């Protein structure tokens, strides 16, 4: 144990250490409060994370542990822990409040978050390692490992900056107040006036299509007219307006339409990560799969 070269055993022990450290943190500080990561805290965390990865990479030749982290042997135990905790999350009901201690709120469970963070650090180090010995044939590896880091890190750190509000607009009455999940009233800086709500139904009266003709007024004096329907949101001043619901009691005669307003300032980075992963997966099957063998 701990004799070079490290085997997977060392990786499983490090993972076990992270689980233990996570449990201590959970006892000491309680579940992670992601809302505390709102701007600029998430930026600071990101800079610290990047700095840590940079330092680890720079010391790779001197500190054996850091060099070891760049290779598959470190990835396997980490992925095993991540998979196991995610399976556990899938098996146990996840609730917002209450439930089983620790495991019913897996996303706020320190050990889960530490393991995923470890996975991101390992993946970033591996990507850097391949990036710096640049060759065209390294592109697939870099896309896959950097893509997943860019997508997951920006999605996680950006979650506290994401606003999701519900706005109910009655026909002909501009509405600027919207409520969040907790029921708190917000004024997101835009108003929606509903001109006409349309509902088409199938013969069995299940909804086929519902849409709202609206005008969105913004604080800076814009008036954007458009139709919002499911799968076709409208983009105004960094907000996306989604068709969310209507008064099902009245159906086609619904006097109001419910919209969801979403503001997600980190979305561009998530998309960049996702498109890197899609390109990476394409490369995975075209270039990374071992050559077929014929006897």
């Amino acid at each position, binding site marked *: 144990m701990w004799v070079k070269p490290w085997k997977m055993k060392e990786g499983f022990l490090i993972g076990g250490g992270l689980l233990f450290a996570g449990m201590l943190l959970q006892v000491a500080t309680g579940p992670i409060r992601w809302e505390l990561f709102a701007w600029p805290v998430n930026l600071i965390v990101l800079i610290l994370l990047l700095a840590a990865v940079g330092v680890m990479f720079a010391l790779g030749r001197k500190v054996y542990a850091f060099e070891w982290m760049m290779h598959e042997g470190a990835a*396997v135990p980490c992925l095993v822990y991540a998979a196991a905790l995610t399976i556990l999350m*899938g098996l146990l009901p996840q609730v917002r409040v209450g439930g089983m201690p620790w495991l019913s709120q897996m996303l706020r469970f320190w050990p889960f978050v530490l393991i995923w963070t470890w996975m991101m650090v390992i993946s970033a180090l591996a990507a850097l390692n391949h990036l710096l010995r640049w060759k065209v044939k390294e592109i697939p590896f870099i896309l896959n490992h950097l893509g997943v880091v860019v997508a997951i890190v920006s999605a996680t750190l950006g979650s506290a900056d994401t606003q999701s509000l519900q706005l109910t607009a009655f026909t002909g009455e501009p509405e600027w107040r919207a409520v969040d999940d907790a029921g708190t009233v917000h004024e997101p800086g835009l108003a929606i006036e509903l001109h006409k709500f349309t509902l088409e139904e*199938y013969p069995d009266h299940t*909804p086929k299509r519902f849409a709202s003709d609206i005008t969105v007024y913004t604080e800076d004096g814009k008036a954007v007219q458009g139709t919002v329907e499911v799968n076709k949101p409208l983009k105004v001043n960094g907000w996306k307006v989604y068709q969310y619901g209507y008064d099902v009691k009245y159906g086609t005669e619904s006097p109001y339409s419910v919209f969801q307003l979403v503001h997600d300032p980190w979305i561009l980075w998530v998309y960049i990560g*996702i498109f890197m992963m899609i390109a990476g997966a394409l490369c995975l099957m075209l270039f990374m799969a071992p050559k077929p063998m014929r006897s």
Partner: protein
Amino acid sequence: MSWDSFVWFALTAVLLWAAGAFFAWKERKPLVYACTLTGIALFFAFILGMWISLERPPLRTMGETRLWYSFFLPVAGIIVYSRWRYKWILSFSTLLSFVFICVNLLKPGIHSKSLMPALQSPWFAPHVIVYMFSYALLGAATVMAVYMLIRKGKTTEKEINLTDNLVYVGLAFLTFGMLFGALWAKEAWGTYWAWDPKETWAAATWLCYLVYMHLRKAKPGEWQTACVILLVSFVCLQICWWGINYLPSAQGLSIHTYNVK
């Protein structure tokens, strides 16, 4: 095209695939391709017919996803055959496809025209179709894993190579399915990932196949452990596909249940 004609299309296709599989054993290559591809074309004609008559892609109900799965198994089979020349692969894909066709004949599911607004998106077809193709490939990889674990000592490099390939291509399609789903969800609901039970199991499945891939790189000699991981991964995949409908943790929580009335 109505569901009633499924039995004729399906059984003719199965007979053609069985003929293709037979000719594979007899090493009559042109006949293998002719029979198998005709069967595939016939089966696809039925899917297209359903698509047109339902006025929506037939991808909504469990029965409809099984339809695609039965279609993709021989597709994956003929691809593997063309690259590795395994005589048995087409027999296997025909048999497995036949099992799914029988399930569909016995339990057709609801095939109404209605398609809820959330599913009316250009992402719907690619999201489900790439997943079904991936499931077919990863199903084949699972059978390889079982086969290699049973025969242990007799396992060849070529078999391991085939399994690796199935997983690489299967995982690539699994990734496409997951990410197309994320891009679609952003357009439909405003969130690209919500840890809905189906999404949680999709993530777990994805991670399990990543374990396989990294283990194969780190310890090429430990292919038996890798095979066991493939079995675990496939269990996760099944839970993700239909098992969550029976999991207490997912009851009433998943937005991915569309065929519940």
